[in-house]
């Protein structure tokens, strides 16, 4: 039992998975090699056709290759000196396609590396299945079906997803969470009874009821998701694809109408130059990086140990207006601890502690256990006969728990008004001083629990709530980003108000029931807002399904995980704030690179148009003083190709995110990526032109 003494629930892994000291890094060796191979495979037109901008580049490449092999098809004499130039241009266009494919393949490869790491946790193992007669049979884990019960002892792998039906044990979940500190799993708890196949029992023994058939487990679904098997385009990505198609169509028509105009003014327009002009004009940079940005967004979420069911969910995070957060575990530390007994009605502290101890006899929650510890610390022992007694679990409806003794005595503890109602229903009176004690605890931001025996109230237990460090700063950040935070709590309005004020949340709902969660979400959605929330219990499932972004805790119930569109493997509700930041970063990255892509067209006009029409008076547009028309075209095309791999790290990592308002972010992005997109190509094309001429490549 040595390992059980570790502080299981104090762990709270933070930050990216690959930056955790005790974590096995995903296998990324050979990632670049695989991506290079994949980028050649993606030259297949059946794959390229899914990306309109790059498919037009692909068509242009084919035309240029044909013009290299058979120039006479495009009105060029086979003996003309342009054949070598056509070949150079074709090579640059192929490189452009490969670089765009490489960006996507790298982003996909990182997801696949993570899937491989997950797959390694799925090693088949032997399981001890319980037989109806009470015996055991050693079976292969792949033969287990939903409903089977298995025994898993110390040092054994849990063979499949399941619920603990008996026992308490420490489980090492590092295979899926990256965090090696074991977590306590026990039967009967809503959030600690769920176990995942492939994790390791490190102490004691558990009896587990299997909840997933082979191939349907949590890790199976995670693998499908991170591999991108279920990736569909997000609404934002679809909208941007339409915009890029429209821009491409406009430039295609503009370029296609040039030959008659050029013929009229007397300038020759070789087809390959028209292809170069078209490729330079269409937004190839964002076209090449678009899918990589989306895939990398999902990967970034996965790096934070969150599995998103779709890119749509990650993207929706970027548009979130309202966060609905549970107080306990999210804003305050999960475990409220009993701090003090406040007796009322003439009872002594010892009397109150004894009744509280009796009422907590069956309470296995951290709060219940802390009440027992505080009573024992005061030297109070149980005064009630536990034989034949039964426990009453806490519920959101009754808002109380307790013990029914064999002699009919009812010991209760719970929300003050719930206990008042209970005592009155038994013909009792509410003692003087109860409301005073209630307010005293509430004003400290604590949770007051009234304690009664039969029809008599003995006093109040002060449960101390501790706000997590740094919460105020995080809510300030969210406010600057225009996100409203709403705290939901079962606490009374005074306690809720104190906690909300101290934590800095914008609004709170006190004495909330599970139905209130859905009501809050629906009210916000009726105002046209997108809502995110976290949850772990079965009663959270409807609200998780209703929210635009629902994040379930991995320690939560199966129903919660299935209703949500994201699962946090670390079971850290605070991470919702990180996820929203990643969603914002995804949208900002896409916007920034689109701005850059469209802005860097300008320099290409000044390179290619003078090259095409220099002979008919447009030579003055050669602001960069490029050496020759051919070197100007090659320089623009080389820049067009090289800018894609140059921006791959930015696309995969995301632009630096600052928690500012949308207006400030827009201004900053226009300045950095708009102005940068204008200036960088002028410098880049000129530099490439100098290199091309110094190497006599033209």
């Amino acid at each position: 039992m040595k390992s059980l003494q570790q502080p299981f629930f104090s762990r709270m892994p933070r930050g990216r998975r690959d930056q955790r000291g005790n974590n096995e890094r995903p296998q990324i060796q050979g990632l670049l090699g695989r991506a290079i191979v994949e980028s050649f495979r993606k030259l297949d037109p059946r794959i390229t056709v899914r990306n309109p901008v790059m498919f037009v580049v692909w068509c242009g490449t084919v035309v240029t290759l044909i013009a290299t092999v058979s120039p006479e098809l495009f009105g060029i004499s086979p003996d003309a000196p342009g054949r070598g130039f056509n070949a150079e241009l074709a090579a640059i266009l192929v490189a452009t396609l490969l670089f765009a494919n490489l960006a996507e393949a790298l982003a996909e490869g990182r997801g696949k590396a993570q899937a491989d790491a997950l797959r390694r946790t799925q090693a088949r193992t032997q399981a001890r299945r319980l037989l109806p007669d009470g015996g055991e049979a050693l079976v292969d884990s792949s033969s287990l079906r939903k409903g089977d019960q298995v025994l898993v002892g110390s040092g054994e792998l849990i063979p499949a997803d399941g619920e603990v039906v008996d026992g308490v044990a420490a489980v090492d979940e590092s295979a899926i969470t990256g965090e090696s500190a074991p977590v306590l799993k026990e039967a009967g708890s809503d959030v600690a009874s769920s176990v995942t196949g492939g994790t390791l029992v490190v102490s004691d023994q558990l009896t587990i009821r299997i909840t997933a058939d082979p191939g349907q487990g949590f890790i199976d679904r995670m693998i499908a998701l991170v591999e991108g098997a279920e990736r569909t385009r997000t609404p934002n990505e679809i909208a941007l694809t339409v915009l890029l198609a429209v821009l491409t169509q406009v430039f295609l028509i503009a370029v296609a109408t040039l030959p008659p105009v050029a013929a009229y003014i007397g300038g020759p327009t070789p087809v390959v130059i028209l292809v170069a002009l078209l490729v330079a004009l269409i937004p190839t940079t964002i076209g090449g990086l678009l899918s990589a940005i989306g895939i990398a967004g999902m990967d970034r979420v996965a790096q934070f140990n969150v599995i998103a069911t779709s890119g749509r969910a990650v993207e929706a995070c970027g548009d979130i207006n309202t966060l609905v957060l549970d107080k306990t575990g999210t804003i305050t530390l999960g475990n409220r601890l009993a701090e003090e007994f406040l007796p009322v009605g003439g009872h002594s502290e010892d009397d109150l502690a004894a009744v509280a101890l009796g009422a907590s006899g069956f309470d296995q929650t951290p709060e219940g256990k802390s009440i027992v510890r505080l009573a024992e610390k005061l030297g109070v022992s149980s005064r009630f006969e536990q034989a034949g007694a039964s426990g009453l679990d806490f519920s959101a409806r009754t808002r109380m728990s307790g013990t029914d003794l064999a002699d009919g005595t009812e010991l209760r503890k719970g929300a003050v008004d719930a206990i008042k109602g209970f005592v009155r229903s038994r013909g009792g009176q509410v003692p003087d001083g109860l409301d005073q004690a209630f307010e005293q605890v509430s004003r400290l931001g604590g949770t007051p629990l009234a304690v009664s025996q039969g029809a008599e109230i003995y006093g109040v237990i002060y449960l101390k709530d501790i706000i997590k460090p740094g919460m105020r700063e995080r809510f300030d950040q969210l406010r600057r980003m225009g996100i409203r935070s709403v705290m939901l709590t079962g606490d009374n309005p005074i306690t809720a108000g104190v906690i909300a004020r101290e934590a800095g949340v914008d609004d709170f709902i006190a004495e909330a029931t599970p139905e209130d969660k859905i009501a809050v979400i629906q009210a916000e959605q009726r105002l046209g807002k997108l809502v995110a929330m976290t949850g772990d219990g079965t009663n959270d499932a409807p609200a998780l399904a209703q929210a635009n972004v629902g994040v379930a805790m991995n320690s939560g119930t199966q129903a919660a995980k299935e209703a949500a569109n994201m699962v946090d493997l670390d079971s850290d509700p605070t991470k919702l704030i990180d996820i929203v930041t990643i969603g914002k970063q995804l949208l900002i990255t896409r916007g920034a690179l689109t701005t850059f892509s469209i802005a860097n067209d300008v320099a290409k006009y000044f390179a290619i148009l003078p090259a095409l029409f220099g002979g008919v008076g447009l030579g003055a547009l050669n602001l960069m003083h490029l050496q020759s028309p051919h070197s100007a075209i090659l320089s623009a095309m080389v820049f067009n190709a090289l800018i894609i791999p140059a921006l791959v790290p930015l696309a995969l990592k995301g632009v630096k995110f600052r928690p500012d308002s949308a207006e400030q972010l827009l201004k900053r992005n226009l300045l950095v990526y708009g102005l940068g997109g204008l200036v960088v190509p002028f410098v880049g094309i000129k530099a490439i032109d100098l290199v091309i001429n110094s190497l006599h490549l033209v």
Partner: protein
Amino acid sequence: MFLTKPFFWIPLLLAGGAVAASAPLRLFNPPLQTGALSVLLSVTVAISIYLFAVMVQPEKF
């Protein structure tokens, strides 16, 4: 069956389009330019049809 594959009949349609376009273009252009212009025209029309398809049903791409 390769006959049902779009990448079999698309080049055929392009070639057919180029041949069809070359007839009127030949009236106003020298032979070499006629070939180039007709290929350019048919490729432009084909890519435009594809791009309009993307605009109308982007989720399919």
